[in-house]
């Protein structure tokens, strides 16, 4: 299968700190990849280079065969990569519904290249008028009960979900999630991941996600890439990578032990 994303030899330095040193990753379509590593290992730098926020010092990135290395974030978004953020990026003074309406409005603008379209207009990728599509998105992401709440006052878990919903609104081919469950209570984590993954799966979206919680990583990813000091330490199936002695030593620490115990508990 031809890879949907192909990054070769990415390097990035911030002063004396090397955030990425020869990172090469190619991702097959329709898969779910978990990116793990301690803070400062280079996960977010990699994500930021793929989404155009940072330009790599060396190396190149191809998406669907097209060189996107030098493109601006919005051009990359239009090609089909969308992302969520570690700290949710929302329109805080607007309600949840308005957030989604703005997002879908931009989708409409991107497809028709028109600033002047109004709400009765059909959003192409959805086949329904803008307002109907917005209500559908609220239902799909379980945000209906927050419909008229301002984004500023939402609980963190809901903010994360709305942030991801807005990323998925543009119907990307690849979705990149930066720590989708950080700052969220343990019982909420799986709810968020289930909602997002089922939405992504039903649309055939390739997912890359940065995550610290190894339980989440092992449950949702088909492939795991471990980062350490700007390099790739291990890459492969979750069980293989999480079992790697180097990964256990440098990346995961005590978490895997806890993980195996919890798995046994679930089985029992």
């Amino acid at each position: 299968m031809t890879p949907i994303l192909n990054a070769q030899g990415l390097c990035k330095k911030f002063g004396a700190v090397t955030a990425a040193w020869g990172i090469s990753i190619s991702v097959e379509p329709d898969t779910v990849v978990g990116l793990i590593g301690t803070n400062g290992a280079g996960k977010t730098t990699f994500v930021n280079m793929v989404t155009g926020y940072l330009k790599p010092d060396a190396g190149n990135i191809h998406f669907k065969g097209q060189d996107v290395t030098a493109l601006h974030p919005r051009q990359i978004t239009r090609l089909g990569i969308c992302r969520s953020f570690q700290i949710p990026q929302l329109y805080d003074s607007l309600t949840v519904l308005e957030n989604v309406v703005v997002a879908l409005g931009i989708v409409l603008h991107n497809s028709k290249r028109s600033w002047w379209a109004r709400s009765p207009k059909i959003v192409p990728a959805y086949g329904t008028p803008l307002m109907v599509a917005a209500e559908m998105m609220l239902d799909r992401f379980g945000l209906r009960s927050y419909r008229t709440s301002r984004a500023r006052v939402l609980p963190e878990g809901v903010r994360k979900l709305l942030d991801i919903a807005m990323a998925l609104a543009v119907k990307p081919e690849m979705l990149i999630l930066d720590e989708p469950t950080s700052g969220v209570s343990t019982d909420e984590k799986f709810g968020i991941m289930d909602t997002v993954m089922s939405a992504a799966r039903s649309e055939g979206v390739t997912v890359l996600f940065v995550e610290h919680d190894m339980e989440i990583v092992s449950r949702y990813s088909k492939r795991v890439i471990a980062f350490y000091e700007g390099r790739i330490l291990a890459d492969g199936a979750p069980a293989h990578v999480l079992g790697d002695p180097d990964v256990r030593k440098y990346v995961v620490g005590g978490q895997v032990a806890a993980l195996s115990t919890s798995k046994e508990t679930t089985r029992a």
Partner: protein
Amino acid sequence: MKRLDPTLLALFVALLALLVLGFLLPKWLFLLTLSLGKGLVVLGLLLLLRTGLVSFGQGLFYCLGAYAVGSLGQFFGIKDVLLLLLTGVAVGSSVAFLLGFLMAKYREIFFAMLSLAFSMILYGLLVRTAALGSTDGFNVAPPTLFGRPIGGEAHQYALFALACVVAFLTALMMHTYFKTVLGRLSPAIRDNEIRVEYMGASVRHAIHVKYVIAGALAGLGGALTAMTVGHIDPDLAYWTTSGEFIFVAILSGTGSVIAPFLGSLVFEIIRTYAYQYSPNTWQLVVGSALLLVIVFFPAGLWSVFGHLRRRGSA
């Protein structure tokens, strides 16, 4: 049945009320027409404020609109009111289009100061241009509509009625505009530019378009003011003029497209009476009025209607 848009209804009522009011109170015609002209400028400024941008230089486009009208009459003998208004719009929007390439890169205080700088450049140029009357400016001849005189002492009501229709149509267009993708983008840009860019839209492009619209409205307002007052001078581009527009914008609030016209009218009334009764301390009265509005109605005068409506429906 589809419910009638309350703003639409309010616009129609306001248009009729103004036309009747102007007919009943001929002494107020000047003040009413002037408020409409300035209200147009403030409407454009509100568009920028909603986007999180404070232009401290709308006087630039206001003055350009006014001088375009004055110059066309003075040097080319063009007096048709519709043509003059269109010229105001054209001059305002085209200069805003050019400056927009630079302005759209800046935010916050830098945006405000750069806009101020541009308006002061125009002021400086006009003060030194003898052909345009330097600091004294020059008189603007009353315009005509289809060859018949409009404005001036004798036909003040006709010009006022035209101003009402122009303001009505502009407010209607802006009300529609706020529901477009670009209109809805304003608060989104104010809240979070990163998210807008990561949805695939260009913030700079959106701001540029909004800046041009604001420039066009200020040019239109300037053109109308020039015809109403019958005289123009470089003070139209001075920073106090631009400051006054911000003052009125805060007084009005961003609640509705009618708010700027209401705010503008209230401001002109307060200023006129304050000037009449305390010529030396009128600024104090105007300032106190703004202070009261900020304390009691932080969302502007328009929020009074919101309170009333909520009380009415409760």
